[in-house]
């Protein structure tokens, strides 16, 4: 599992390593920062194709679309750890799975908001009832239901198992929703329903120069947020354990 190696989850908590080791471990955090600084500067200043209606809002591509890539990536990692939990129940996989779902939810919410800002200027209203918007909203509902489920089970082991099952099941039900159905219906969203995606505008690949680094940068940032939250949760658990021991 490459993710666990890159993100070096949990195992790094509290370990004292030499500076070189730390540098080696945090290369992806540094590259995330560099890529995102480049995205913000290049995304706002570099030249973009001139198009009617869309105009400068085409720059939303660098901030809106990577949110969805990031969301799907986070949810995938969450599913992988849910499967690992079911195969071999341990607390670590559960924590990783939850926190990646959390981060994915954050990305989804940001994706909806950035999309609404864009739609306000190009479609005329923030919520247009477009199939893509509806699909995204339902996806978020699925993961909100996931957190409601977690909140309403008290037994820790049972909570982890049930939520892992629901995570996998919901993802299976979500696939037709965000990948298949929007392609069947007419949509005003760029890239579907006869509207050209950015591939068509971007004949000289000027936008790709920023778009691909932006995707990688946002996904790495998501991984960073998730690992930080995982470490926080693990430390919280350890402190609770110590408190319990003191009280007994």
């Amino acid at each position, binding site marked *: 599992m490459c993710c666990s190696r890159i993100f070096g989850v949990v195992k790094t908590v509290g370990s004292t390593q030499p500076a070189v080791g730390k540098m080696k471990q945090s290369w992806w955090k540094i590259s995330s920062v560099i890529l995102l600084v480049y995205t913000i500067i290049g995304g706002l200043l570099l030249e973009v194709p001139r198009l009617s209606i869309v105009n400068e809002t085409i720059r939303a591509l660098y901030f809106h679309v990577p949110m969805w890539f990031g969301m799907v990536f986070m949810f995938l990692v969450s599913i992988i750890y849910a499967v690992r939990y079911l195969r071999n129940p341990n607390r670590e996989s559960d924590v990783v799975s939850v926190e990646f779902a959390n981060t994915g939810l954050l990305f989804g919410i940001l994706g909806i908001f950035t999309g609404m800002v864009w739609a306000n200027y190009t479609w005329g209203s923030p919520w247009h009832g477009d199939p893509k918007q509806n699909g995204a909203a339902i996806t978020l509902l699925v993961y909100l*239901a996931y957190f*409601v489920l977690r909140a309403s*089970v008290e037994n820790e082991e*049972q909570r982890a198992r049930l939520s892992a099952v629901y995570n996998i099941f919901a993802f299976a*039900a979500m696939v037709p929703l965000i990948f298949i*159905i929007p392609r069947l219906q007419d949509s005003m969203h760029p890239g579907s329903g006869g509207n050209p995606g950015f591939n068509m505008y971007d004949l000289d690949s000027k936008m790709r120069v920023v778009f691909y680094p932006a995707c990688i940068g946002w996904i790495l940032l998501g991984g960073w947020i998730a690992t930080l939250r995982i470490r926080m949760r693990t430390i919280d658990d350890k402190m609770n354990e110590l408190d319990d021991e003191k009280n007994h």
Partner: protein
Amino acid sequence: MDKLKTLIAKEFTLELRRKSVISGLALYLFSIIFICYLTFSLRQNLITPLVWTALFWITVLFTAVNTVAKSFIGERKGRDIYYYSVTSPASIIISKIIYNFLLCSLMSFTGFFLFILFLGNPVFDQFLFAIVIVLTSMGFASSLTLLSSIASKANNSSILMAVLSFPVVISILLMAVKVTKNCIDGLDRSVSWDEILILLAINCLVAAASYVLFPYIWRS
């Protein structure tokens, strides 16, 4: 195979033994449709095909959720342990899905007849509509059965059942609504072929997921 038959037969016997549950569900269905009828009785012309479709599928969805929810939530505690010792989880989930599928189809067709009785019948292509009802019941049964077993393990299970199930069954419902529109407009069957295939594919996906995941829930 024998086990499956026994388990399905057991579900039916249990159902027939406590008739209050099934008659309660029938009454639930009737009440919803009667309320729809009363609401629209003064203005029959307001029931456009689109309104009819929406009312019909909302009614079917709510009835299906209530029908399937009781399949695990109603079970007594001790019985679980007994099942655990005599059969495998796979046969339990398959038997429950088949049984719920039959019950859901029964409820949906009853609902359809009541709709014809009270709100009229705008459906042009009856045969295709029947196929859609059967496929949707299959989808509802296979997805909701697993969710009901999840919900039965948690607190406030009846609310949880609704919260967990609505996002999951929405893709099935969307397809069903689309084909229903085609049926009402009397379009050629080849137009709806794509949607029927997708509905079938979603059913297979959801049923396979339930089959694989159920043993993990049941182990507790």
